């Protein structure tokens, strides 16, 4: 038994294709990218050694600061919106729609699978002001308000991005959290009801604590995704107007491919990776403390 299921040749043959591809196309480039951070230049212009200059630049560059600030603002807003609305939807499925929720769940999930680029272009048209007035501005005008130039300023554009990304993914978090809520045993809720807990108190003391672990998973999942946002913002605003809606990922892309500085681009990518790592570890530890307390 040991001999057959521990046969080294078979293990190597089965594991090698995946491990080699993964190492060559992900692990090696990662280390290579770390190497780039000590150089400036690009393959076209050639590289020159610059020591720690890229890291010093990271702390001085006002554009990096703006990009970090935007990434943080985006990640916090979208994570809160996605998970909070997803949770409300999940509560709606479990406690109001109950068994008939399948259709609603299916419908609210479908934006998740739509191509980001298509959704972004659709939202450009939905929020358009000129030459044709889009549905959102038409609705504003019909309600007696004034049409807004949504992509004219950074703060307006941010709201379109937020609305779009929450629209796109709240169904996903709803299904994720729904699975957690369904796992709460019926009898626990029933006995709390008998003890006189209803509505808010039932939610606060029974439902919320019991769905806490899956809520944390959703938060970690969401913050990791939002820190790495690229496609939706690139296609919707292109980082504009100016660079007012440019997250780290997009700034990195511009630095490397538009300004041809691979060294500094890699430094920004490293910063992003560290950010994801730190946030995840931090959330893990923070929540584990809560569970044991």
């Amino acid at each position: 038994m040991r001999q057959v299921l521990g046969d080294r040749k078979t293990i190597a043959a089965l594991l090698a294709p995946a491990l080699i591809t993964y190492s060559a196309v992900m692990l090696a480039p990662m280390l290579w990218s770390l190497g780039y951070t000590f150089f400036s230049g690009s393959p076209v212009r050639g590289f020159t050694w610059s020591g720690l200059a890229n890291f010093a630049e990271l702390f001085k560059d006002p554009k990096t600061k703006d990009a970090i600030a935007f990434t943080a603002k985006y990640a916090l807003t979208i994570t809160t919106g996605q998970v909070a609305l997803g949770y409300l939807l999940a509560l709606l499925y479990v406690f109001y729609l109950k068994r008939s929720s399948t259709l609603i769940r299916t419908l609210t999930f479908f934006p998740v699978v739509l191509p980001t680029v298509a959704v972004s272009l659709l939202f450009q048209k939905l929020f358009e002001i000129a030459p044709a007035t889009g549905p959102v501005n038409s609705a504003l005008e019909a309600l007696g308000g004034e049409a807004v130039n949504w992509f004219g300023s950074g703060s307006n554009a941010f709201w379109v991005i937020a609305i779009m990304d929450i629209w796109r993914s709240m169904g996903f978090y709803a299904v994720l959290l729904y699975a957690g809520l369904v796992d709460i045993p019926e009898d626990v809720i029933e006995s709390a009801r008998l003890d006189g807990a209803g509505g808010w108190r039932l939610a606060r003391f029974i439902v919320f604590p019991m769905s806490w672990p899956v809520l944390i998973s959703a938060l970690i999942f969401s913050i990791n995704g939002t820190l790495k946002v690229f496609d939706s913002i690139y296609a919707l605003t292109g980082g504009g107007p100016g660079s007012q809606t440019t997250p780290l990922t997009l700034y990195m892309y511009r630095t490397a491919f538009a300004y041809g500085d691979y060294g500094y681009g890699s430094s920004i990518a490293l910063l992003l990776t560290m950010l994801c790592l730190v946030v995840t570890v931090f959330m893990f530890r923070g929540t584990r403390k809560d569970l044991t307390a």
Partner: protein
Amino acid sequence: MTRLPSRPARPPMPPARPPMPPAPFRPPAAGRRARRAGRRLRRAPLALATAVLLVIEVYPLVWLLLGSLKTQSEFMNNPTWALPTDWTNFDNYRQAWESGVSRNLLNSVIAVFPSLALIIVFGVAAGFALEVMVWKGRGTVLLVFLGGIMIPSQMILLPLFSAYFKTHLTGTVWPLILTYTATGLPLTVFMMATYFRSIPKELFEAATIDGASAFRSFRSIAFPMMTNAIFTVGLVQFFFLWNDLLLAMTFTSGAGHDELATVQVGLLSFQGRFGAVQYGPTMAAICVNVLITLALYLFLNQRVMKGMTAGAVKG
């Protein structure tokens, strides 16, 4: 790796099951009816919220579909919620199709499906080696794969770009296939390992006693038993790869090889060329893109939902 955020390393704690409560108290019939009417009234806001929710989810797509049938003058002169005047006006689709959408679709298929096949074969084999086979260090290797879920694509983009350039792969479809395969592997290996864990070990032990080699066990037992899992994981990866913009843009249009542009890259440049001037064809191009994923989802929705969320909570 914008699309693969990390997930927690352990499953959520199952809630503790308390002792059975007494049977629920039943109110008398008359009171029950009054209570039911009251409840219906209290729930009216919830019904309204559900209706609003449905409008918010569905209307943008209905508007898109209607828009793809409108002419340019309808966009400019009619209110935005007007219905198209001619329901059989498919000129927009023809125009979109002829100006590159068909080429982009073909490119996407050429890049995505070979990658999917490689991801599945490599992923299942690695999952089997890591979960069913017995050897020292398999836990570490699994962790190494898991780490890949955290890495943002930005971290590997530049070295890959140089490497493909130096090996003269730029300008072919190989950079996309290689990168797609590699970035799809971490999640796939991880999910396959999880699925293999749920298959009883005795099955493989029995096969071994019957004289099957490990490779035979893999081919004749593991692979057929995994068809469900393979289908689900393949579906999830399909959506990730099909919807990818960053990698496709970097390795096709970024390299100045527009003839390789995938659907997403093509759509973006289509919008650049036509968007501000011609609404109809742009809407039709978006529509084609949306309808493909939507059709797949309509047929397999429960599957897709399960697969997509399993990637998030499992493990």
